[in-house]
Every structure is written in structure tokens, then in C-alpha cells.
């Protein structure tokens, strides 16, 4: 009997030390029943997109929050993977899973390429170089209307699960949970620790025997891969893709989410993704005020809680050890 209790305590202690896993599992179980209790099609769809953006934001957090590599070209991964998946599906009629995996691998390679370029760059210089890449690709899209769809993008390729919202919801939920688990294992483990060390003091980290080049490239690759997952899924849920997916606007979305929620914590981007997606999509009912409310919320939160929403309990002095 005591033996059983002792065995049960091991995972419990683990959860207490790193509540993020517990939160992910609870989130998964809670959202499993959402399609049964939420009858509103629109709200379920918003939650689905929020889940997608959770992957996008946490992957950005791994790079920017943990690694301190602030890239504004994250839409390159998101849009690039989405475009490739869409093109493959439309032109060659490949099965969806092949398109999605190819898209993600493509994002991974793009991450390797961008990471290789950015190895020597720092701070604002890095920001500008990463900002330029999607803009250049965006121009390529504009000047090739026959292949890449031009300004209108491409539409009419296969949708995920034949367009059934509930099936899509479950697929996205499962993918989100798995991705979140992998990202948090990476971020809370050695990998995240080394990235933090590189962020704080790159020369120091190198002196401690860390291969900084390898870890920076790995951060780009992992981040690109997970952004690619969200991009391909997004493309296949919408059934269409346009140049906006590659634009500065989509590159800024994860930045907003991560800093609104609180950087270098997995739970922060998670909260941020939900808040931003709900603000963005739910307020569609007020077309004129939408962006003003959206922007005002961000300004207000960051003015009074510069560490993001995750620091609110910290600053009030409650729930301090429980979160993060």
C-alpha cells in the first residue's frame, strides 16, 4: 500500500516542479469536451485557430524568449510552409499528410538557412535581416501570378478532414498538445537552459564549452519546424492561402502573443495566443473599433505589466510559485 502511494507520488512531485505539463494535460482533457458543450460554430472555430496560434507563438518563444534571437521573419516559416503545402495539394493532388509533412520539412530547411545567415548578426541587425526575408518572398509572390497565385493567393485545395469542423478541431487539438509537450520538454530541459545561457552571455556560454553555433541553428530549426506545422494546418483548414500569410502582419502576430503573455515561459505565449486570437477574431463584430480595442489592450497590459500577463499574479503577489 505504502509502496503504491510512493509510486504515485513520483509523477505528482514532477508535476509540482514543472506545472507546465500538468497544465498541458488539463488543457487537453478540458478541450476534448469542447465540441460537445460549445454549440456555437464560430466560437469553436476561434478556439481552433487559437490552438493553431499557440503552436506558432510557443515556437517563436523558443527562439525569441529563450534564445534571445528576435526574428520578425517568422511569417517566412508560417507562410512558406503553408504555400508549399497548398501548392503541392493543388497541383499534384498529393494526400494531405504528405503535403503537411513536406511543408514542415521545408520550414525546417528555411530555418536552417535563415539561422545560418543570422549567426553573426545581433539585435537590430538581426531583426532587419529577418524582416527582409519574408518581404523579398512576398515580392516574388506578387510578380508570379501564374504559379504562386499573385495577389489573390491560391484557393480550392483540399481541406483538412473534408472541412468538418469537429474533426478539424480534434486533429488540431492533438497536434497542439503534442507540439506543446515537445516544446516544453525542450524549453524546460537542457536545450532551453543552454539557449538562456547564450541569450545572457554568448561569449561566456562559449567559454563554458557550449557549441553556440549548433544550438542557435537548432533553435532556428525547431522553431521553423513548429511554425511550419501551424502554417500548413492553417492553410489546409482555410483551404486557401494568400500573400497576407507572408506579410509583416503575420510576422508580428507571434511577437504580440509572446510579449503580451510573457516571454521565455511556455505558458505565457499560450495565454497570449488565446487573448490575441479572441481579440482579433471575436471583435470582428465591431469592424471599426476592432483594431483600436486590440491595440489598446496590448498597450495597457504592457504599460502596467511590462513582463506580460504571466507576471500579473507575480506583481500582485499571489499564485507566485504555482505558475511558470
Amino acid at each position: 500500500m505504502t509502496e503504491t502511494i510512493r509510486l504515485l507520488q513520483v509523477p505528482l512531485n514532477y508535476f509540482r516542479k514543472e506545472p507546465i505539463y500538468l497544465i498541458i494535460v488539463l488543457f487537453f482533457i478540458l478541450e476534448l469536451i469542447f465540441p460537445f458543450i460549445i454549440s456555437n460554430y464560430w466560437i469553436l472555430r476561434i478556439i481552433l485557430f487559437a490552438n493553431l496560434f499557440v503552436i506558432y507563438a510557443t515556437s517563436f518563444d523558443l527562439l525569441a524568449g529563450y534564445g534571445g534571437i528576435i526574428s520578425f521573419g517568422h511569417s517566412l516559416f508560417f507562410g512558406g510552409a503553408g504555400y508549399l503545402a497548398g501548392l503541392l495539394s493543388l497541383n499534384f493532388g498529393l494526400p494531405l499528410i504528405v503535403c503537411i509533412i513536406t511543408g514542415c520539412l521545408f520550414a525546417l530547411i528555411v530555418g536552417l538557412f535563415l539561422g545560418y545567415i543570422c549567426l553573426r548578426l545581433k539585435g537590430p541587425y538581426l531583426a532587419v535581416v529577418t524582416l527582409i526575408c519574408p518581404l523579398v518572398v512576398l515580392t516574388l509572390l506578387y510578380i508570379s501570378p501564374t504559379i504562386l497565385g499573385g495577389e489573390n493567393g491560391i484557393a480550392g485545395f483540399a481541406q483538412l478532414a473534408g472541412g468538418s469542423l469537429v474533426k478539424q478541431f480534434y486533429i488540431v487539438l492533438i497536434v497542439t498538445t503534442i507540439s506543446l509537450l515537445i516544446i516544453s520538454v525542450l524549453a524546460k530541459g537542457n536545450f532551453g537552459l543552454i539557449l538562456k545561457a547564450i541569450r545572457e552571455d554568448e561569449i561566456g556560454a562559449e567559454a563554458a564549452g557550449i557549441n553556440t553555433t549548433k544550438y542557435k541553428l537548432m533553435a532556428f530549426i525547431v522553431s521553423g519546424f513548429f511554425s511550419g506545422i501551424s502554417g500548413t494546418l492553417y492553410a489546409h483548414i482555410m483551404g486557401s492561402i494568400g500573400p497576407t500569410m507572408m506579410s509583416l502582419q503575420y510576422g508580428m502576430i507571434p511577437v504580440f502573443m509572446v510579449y503580451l503573455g510573457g516571454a521565455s515561459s511556455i505558458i505565457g505565449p499560450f495565454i497570449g495566443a488565446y487573448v490575441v486570437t479572441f481579440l482579433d477574431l471575436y471583435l470582428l463584430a465591431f469592424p471599426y473599433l476592432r483594431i483600436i480595442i486590440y491595440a489598446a489592450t496590448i498597450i495597457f497590459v504592457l504599460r502596467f505589466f511590462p513582463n506580460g500577463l504571466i507576471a500579473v499574479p507575480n506583481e500582485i503577489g499571489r499564485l507566485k510559485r504555482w505558475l511558470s
Partner: protein
Amino acid sequence: MDILVNGVLLGLGYCLIAIGMALILGVAKVFDLTYAIYYTIAPYAALALIRTLGPITPFWLVFIISVGASVAFALATHALLIIPIQKQHLVVFVSTIAVGMAVQELLIFKAGSEPIHLPAILKGSSNIFGVWVANQKLLVGGVTASVLAMLWVFLSKTRLGLAIRVTAEQPEAMKMAGGNIRMIFLLTAILAAIVAAVGGLLLSPIYPLHPFDWLDLLIIAFAVMVLGGLGNIWACLPAALILGISEVAVAIYIPFGGIIKRTVGLIIIFLVLVFRPTGLFGIKGWEEES
């Protein structure tokens, strides 16, 4: 010749856009992305004034009031939002982008999403080295040159300029010497807003201004600054000229030039940064000390 004259004039315009942002970034070490909003607000204010007061209003009055509007906005943003959270660069970055989005929507809400046309201050065109150029463009070039000269005199010859330079290099030393850093930051913001507003008022008759344009302007300003190298505001001038000349050359010689001209400029910056990670004339280690 055609390319050179037009490119130089375009480059001077870009320099006018970038120099204020370089000033804020150099002194206060913050990414004030509302900078493009200071640029945008002035033409809108001028247009509103002209509409309400009638077209006979003397242009210097319109000019002063609209520059004043943008200075007031800059002061408000800096005092209320940026200075309290100044230490966290990225938070400043994100929240100023949010300010920009809010102002953009307000402008669309109030003035519609059509591009606005301000009347040109100088009409007609003149012949420069065999190329016909609109007088307004020449005015922009002249104003940019004089703004640069005035900034240089102000920063290097006056006591206040000295204070600004000290704050840029050693804020701690400035504090120890009893200087009020907050005031210096606000002063820098005022200077930058004046430059931006003048730029906006002079450039918007040539390139019609659209509420969405602020992101484009930011990319230009950012690109020029980074190409020149951060921490060195005078490097803006050669960088802006390079960008301007290359854009005009591309627009003339290459098919699709009109669409891809901006991109070619960006690719040049990209290549420069890949091979010279601190820009053309950057001060090494700038980003570490900030």
C-alpha cells in the same frame, strides 16, 4: 544623369525619414516605432487645418500647427508610455507598434482610407543638369541638407547638444553630473518629431500618404539606419543615397521594376549585413552596451 539626380533626391527624402529615428535610437536606445506616426500625423493635421480654415490660410501657420501636433503626440507617447518601460526594449517595440495600429485605425475612421494629397508648397519644375525635376523634390533635398546641417551645429556646438551626446554615450555619467536624463529623452523625442513632421509635410505632396503607409516608412527608416550602422546618425546620409539611387536605377532598367524596386534595395541591405554585420559605418559593440 537621370538616375543620379532622381536617385539623390529620393535618397535625401529617405534620409529625412530615417534621421529622426536614428536620433531616438541613438540617444534613448529605444525602438520608438511610433516615429512613423509622427510623420503621418503632421500631413493629416495640415489637411484638416486647410479644410477647416479655408485654402487661403498662410502655409507657415499650417506648417507650425501641424508640426506642433506631431510634437505633442511624440511628447505624450514618450512621457506616458515609453519612458516608464524603457528598460525592456522589446516591450517598447511591441507596444509602440500597437500605438501605430491604433492611430492608423483612428485615421481611417476619421479621414477615410483614401490616400491624401497635400498641395505642393512649390509649384512647377526646373532643369537640373538636363533633367526636369519637380521643384518640391528640390525643396525636399534642400530642407534635408539644412536639417542635417542644423542638427550637426546643434549637436556639436551647443551645450544642450553636448548634453544629448553625453546621454547617448554614457547615461550614467550624465546622471552623476546632475543632468536630467528624462528631460534629455523628451528633448530628443521633440527633435525627432520635428524632423519627422517636416519630412511628412514636405514629402506627402510628392508621394501621396495613406494611413497604412507607416509600416512602409518604418521599413525604410529601419533599413536606412541599419545599412548605415547604428549609433552613428550621420551614416544615414550615404545609406539613404545608396538606397535611393539603386531604387531609381532598378525602376528604370529592370522589367517589373516598379514592383520590385523596394525589394532590390532590401536585398542590397541584406547582402551588406550578411557580409558586414554592423552595417557600413556601424560602431562595433553598440548593441552590447545598450
